């Protein structure tokens, strides 16, 4: 099926797009490719990147977590509160990360034990965790963190222009890439995404895997929450509002199919970098922040529309070649909504044919 004309898969295309974007930006704007600007961009995308990894795994198994922004903010809030209470930044960091894990655990238990839809559950916990941020902080942000801690937000690693937040990002990228593409656990995720029941019958502990993915998402929200606290040098209850949709948009733009079973880590990395670099470039050439929001929306729409149109085109060519007229099958399965998806036309073209 994937023989012939179109071998350039979605995630390869966006990697190419990223390279072109960096070259184009570097040639047209002298500030774009400087160390300072790249330092800023990498800091700016770090939370999105950290959470996009586990979100990609969740979407591959046909689950979703809308509570990530609230979990991140709650982790940041608890980090701040613990810092004020104990005066130890290490205890505070640990408390923040554990808060994230707890948020993920609750989501996971609700989804796997009660069999609830993760979309509904995490809309609920989105409100719950955000509410708890106000409980923890009131409406006054905590900003008296030690400077050695907050300096990490912008000072480069000695001898380079890279900010410290790059470290967790790179480590997470390697770990997630290996887990998804190099381990049995990773193959289980694709199997679950292709079909829960078949995976269950072939001996994969589907519910346990999903529970761990939610916990993992919580853990990454915790780490991102610490990064957020460091970069903004404060914990405030209204941080990272609407951030969950941005993460999901980046993951889907990176070639992870919302219908499940398809996706790569480097597609996600490329997508988040494209988002970061294009925002930076447009800002440098003087576009205002509103135009950037439009760009995010358009990128997301294109990322689902183009593969679908190409798929339809290929299908019609294939039908004309291989099938006599009048033997069309059943009408296409409708209702690729939020709860269930038909495997046909999963969107991004590279993976639905892989067995």
């Amino acid at each position, binding site marked *: 099926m994937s023989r012939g004309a179109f071998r350039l898969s979605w995630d390869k295309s966006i990697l190419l797009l990223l390279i072109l974007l960096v070259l184009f930006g570097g040639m047209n704007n002298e500030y774009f490719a400087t160390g300072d600007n790249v330092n800023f961009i990498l800091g700016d995308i770090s939370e999105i990147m950290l959470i996009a990894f586990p979100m990609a795994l969740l979407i591959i198994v046909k689950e979703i977590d*809308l509570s990530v922004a609230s979990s991140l903010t709650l982790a940041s809030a608890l980090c701040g509160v613990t810092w004020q209470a104990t005066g130890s930044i290490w205890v505070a960091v640990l408390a923040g990360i554990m808060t994230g894990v707890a948020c993920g655990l609750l989501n996971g238990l*609700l989804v796997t034990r*009660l*069999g*609830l*839809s993760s*979309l*509904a559950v995490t*809309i*609920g*916990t*989105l*409100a*719950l*965790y955000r*509410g*708890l941020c*106000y*409980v923890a902080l*009131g*409406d006054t942000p905590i900003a008296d963190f030690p400077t050695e801690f907050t300096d990490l937000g912008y000072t480069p690693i000695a001898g380079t222009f890279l900010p410290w937040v790059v470290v967790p990002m790179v480590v997470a990228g390697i770990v997630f890439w290996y887990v998804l593409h190099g381990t049995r656990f990773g193959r289980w995720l694709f199997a679950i995404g292709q079909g829960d029941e078949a995976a269950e019958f072939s001996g994969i502990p589907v519910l346990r895997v999903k529970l761990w993915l939610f916990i993992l998402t919580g853990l990454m929200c915790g780490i991102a929450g610490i990064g957020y606290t460091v970069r903004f040098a404060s914990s405030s209850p209204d941080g990272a509002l*609407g951030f969950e*949709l941005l993460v*999901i*948009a980046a993951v*889907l733009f990176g070639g992870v199919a*919302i*219908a499940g079973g398809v996706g790569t880590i480097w597609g996600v990395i490329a997508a988040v970098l494209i988002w970061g670099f294009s925002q930076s470039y447009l800002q440098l050439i003087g576009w*205002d*922040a*509103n*135009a*950037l*929001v*439009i*760009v*995010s*929306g*358009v990128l*997301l*729409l294109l990322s*689902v*529309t183009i593969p*679908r149109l190409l798929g*339809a085109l290929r299908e019609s060519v294939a039908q004309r070649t291989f099938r006599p007229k009048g033997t069309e099958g*059943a*009408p*296409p*399965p*409708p*209702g*690729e*909504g*939020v*709860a*269930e*998806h*038909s495997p046909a*036309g999963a*969107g991004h073209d590279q993976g639905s044919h892989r067995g």
Partner: protein
Amino acid sequence: MSGGLSRVARLREVPVLSALIVLLLLTAILNPAFRGGEGLKAILIESALIAFLAAGQANLIIMRHIDLSVSSTAGLVSFLIGNTSMNNMGISVPQSLMIAVAVGAAVGIVNGALVAYLKLPSLVVTIGTLYLVRGIFNYLAGGVTVTADALPGWVAAIGSGSILGVPDLFVIALILCVLMTIVQTSTRWGRDLYAIGSNPPAAARVGIPVAHREFAAFVLNGIIAGLAGMLLLFRFSFADATAGLGIELYVVAACVIGGVAIAGGVGTAMGALIGAVLLQAITFALGALGVSQFWQQAVAGALLVLAIAFDRIVALRSTQRINRLAEAPV
């Protein structure tokens, strides 16, 4: 129990409505200040916008779809009407309706075409249009703020008026939800939505034009979101670039609490309206009972999670009951 009564008791809306009544009674008993009716009035005013939007959203959730772009559409419309009024020294009702319907239908057509005819997942498409419309809105609005003195008198009149003690805003939402429930339960178009949501491939096999129904429901929801922009303006007599920000999740929450399950195939607009009122009533009750405002959102969130879990348990029970009936010897 007679047949009719037990059927009513089994309606998905009944537990939500009971919870609402118990909550209001408890609050009224514990806090005398709440008894005057002003508290109830405030709840109705606050829940009107969410209920109005939930009427259109319910159609989509019934079909296993979702539309997150409604907040951007409503915000854009409220600003456009306000801004037009500011630049032209006033605006008439038909002009405002025209803006609301045109903008709403445009967004609805984009969403509907991509979801129904290109078969793209509605969650992704409407997150995309959420950004797209919000971006256009922010671009147009910039730093402009529309205040009450730039708006014609009828805007404030509807916003603060009431009919027989019921706020106008809520009356408008109630009328829409009643009409929508009649459409959902008693017309062929409405019944088709449930068939599609229960089993999409089966619905296509029995000849329901699935794509046309999906398209129409998205366009209708877009128009409702546009009209909700007018409600937004009535409510606040104020519009700027943040109008309507973030309300999409409350709309979905109202539907889910009111018995319109994410899994599709069940629920009505009236249920969603009750869900919207319950959601507001919880916040008000907590305030009236002296709970710190910082706890209110957390408790509302916890109750939302509980409502979702409770609904699932009830649904499991009724499936078990049906299975037992099916297995029982005749």
